């Protein structure tokens, strides 16, 4: 897949994603992979690629120094300034899918993902929450719940 974006612009895109999805706990890898997903989408979507080419160039001209050298707070302000543009929306739409589907991100968030190969969660804590009492599971007023029609026909 070809791209007209320069190496500098590709690096800027990673920094845009870091500013758009700021997580102190995330390493660089997921942002780089999300940026690659945006580039892959742009490679087959001329409209998105055009938005990236123009938009990343424009971002670098917003302040005295290129976007990548801005303080995080300033970078956030600059990004808010382009909120709702096809440029930023195009990036966010692709990146939000890629970033949070990244297994390294799952690990940081504490999500364990696919379970079937491990026998599900039945013996791995599906009911291990212990900071609340165990609630009733039967319907209200149901003796044993075996054939409770009250709720259905009430």
């Amino acid at each position, binding site marked *: 897949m070809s791209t007209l974006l320069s190496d500098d612009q590709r690096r800027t895109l990673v920094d845009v994603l870091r500013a758009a999805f700021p997580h102190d706990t995330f390493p660089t890898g997921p942002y780089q992979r999300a940026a690659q997903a945006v580039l892959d989408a742009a490679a087959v979507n001329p409209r998105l690629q055009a938005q990236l080419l123009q938009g990343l160039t424009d971002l670098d001209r917003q302040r005295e120094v290129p976007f990548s050298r801005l303080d995080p707070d300033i970078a956030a302000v600059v*990004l808010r300034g382009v909120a709702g543009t096809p440029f930023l929306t195009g990036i966010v739409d692709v990146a939000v899918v890629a970033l949070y589907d990244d297994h390294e991100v799952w690990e940081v*968030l504490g999500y364990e993902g696919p379970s*079937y190969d491990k026998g599900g969660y039945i013996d791995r804590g599906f009911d291990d929450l212990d900071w609340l009492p165990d609630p009733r599971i039967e319907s209200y007023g149901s003796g044993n719940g075996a054939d409770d029609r009250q709720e259905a026909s009430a």
Partner: protein
Amino acid sequence: MTRFDYDDSDVVVVIGSGAGGGTLANELCQRGFKTVVLEAGPHLTGEDYHQDEWAAFGQMAWTDPRTTSGSWGIARDFPNLPAWIVKAVGGTTTHWAGACPRFKPHEFATRTIYGDIDGASLLDWPITLSELEPYYDKAERKMGVTHRHGRPPLPANNNYKVFANGADKLGYRDYATGPYATNAEPYDGRPATVQDGFNFQGDKHGSKWSTLVAELPKAEATGNLDLRPDSQAVQILHGPDGRATGVLYADRNGTLRRQRAAIVSVAGNSIETARLLLLSASTRYPDGLANSSGQVGRNYMRHTTGTVWGQFDKPVRMYRGETMAGVIADESRLDTDRGFAGGYYMETIALGPAFFAKFVAPGSWGPRLTEIVDGYLNTAGMWIVGEDMPQETNRITLSDTVDEHGLPVANVHFDDHPNDLAMRRHGLTQGAAVYKAVGAHRTIETPPYPSTHNLGTCRMSQRPGDGVVDRFGRAHDVPNLFVTDGSVFTTGAAANPTLTIVALAVRQADYIASEYRASGN
């Protein structure tokens, strides 16, 4: 695998293999009817499914283009994805989470009970709960619904523990882990759940009822089922007498095939069913097949929905276990003093980080999104699902956009009714109160997802002028044409629709068997 000849005009053709079509096909096969099922999507099975939200979405979802219009949030948030339904054998029963409430008596007579609500096209169903009750019993037994007919309840998972404790503190009483059509213990040749989650992604284990794992294999065992995946219906044909004579469809190679038929059932889910009838317009039926009333595509309903998340100081891990396994039914009561007609259920829901980040605040980015996602592990979730008002102008029409076959795609127009907005506000507020009652430090309101409950576009009516099909789902205009999905719902009720779709399909099969002799014998 049984194959019937394209020119065999004795067969029943069922278009769609989901809750309605898959159930009807099995019921007819059991009664000796030669049955051809045309399914637009591929034949995926447990081994094929991904326990990965986006991979599964790409594999299962109906992502062919559709267009949207109207004031609903979906037209802004997901303009080309108005519905979240499945294009594969088993239809959306491979995606549903299994909630099985029945309709309540008043929900069959909303025009009478709620009265004349401005802007709403309410109409009483031509049937009552008591007529449907025997079929609810059959459907619940067929599906192995928990809490019913001796089937044990699902255990409490972590998400339910938060939900039920909050409900109790708030004073709700009608909460439980069901009814759900997922096996808590082995039933009907299918295993008990191993709490592996991913019910929305096909359910690899097969402990959740779907037509893929329950109805279609039974139908196939009769030798009367000819299941044709990758077969997109493009037109229902009719003869000079106005009766349906067969179905044109594009096979997996794009080749147009004609299957002749004695009876045709349309069960493509409410958007595609209406689209197919509109696409089947002819000189005799210029406004579309079965549409002399002008009601085909109108009164589209999608339930009043929303999601509430509670974030806590301690872990919840909502993703462990069944995706949905808890219901609060207190707000499903008949009580117009709340400022709206109709009721709603609260049901536990869990998403992985991928879908959570995408859907929690659609289009959002920046700290507003990332602070929410950072709390993922400590998040509990519930879905609000309630009755929405039918409106004549909420409607499926043919779009200017065409699909890969050159056929106009469906445009889905929807404006929220003021009653819908009032109910959603009430539901989101009550949902937040449930979580705050057990110490949530943050609650988040998520707007509706693309519609999973698509209803009403071929509604059932006593008088032919008021709707599209009669009390058995037979088209008022075309005596051998049936509709067998949620399109026939006269009004939507609060209940998740699948149980009722299945009950109606079993009832329709009884009717067809009484009216037509099985030609396979």
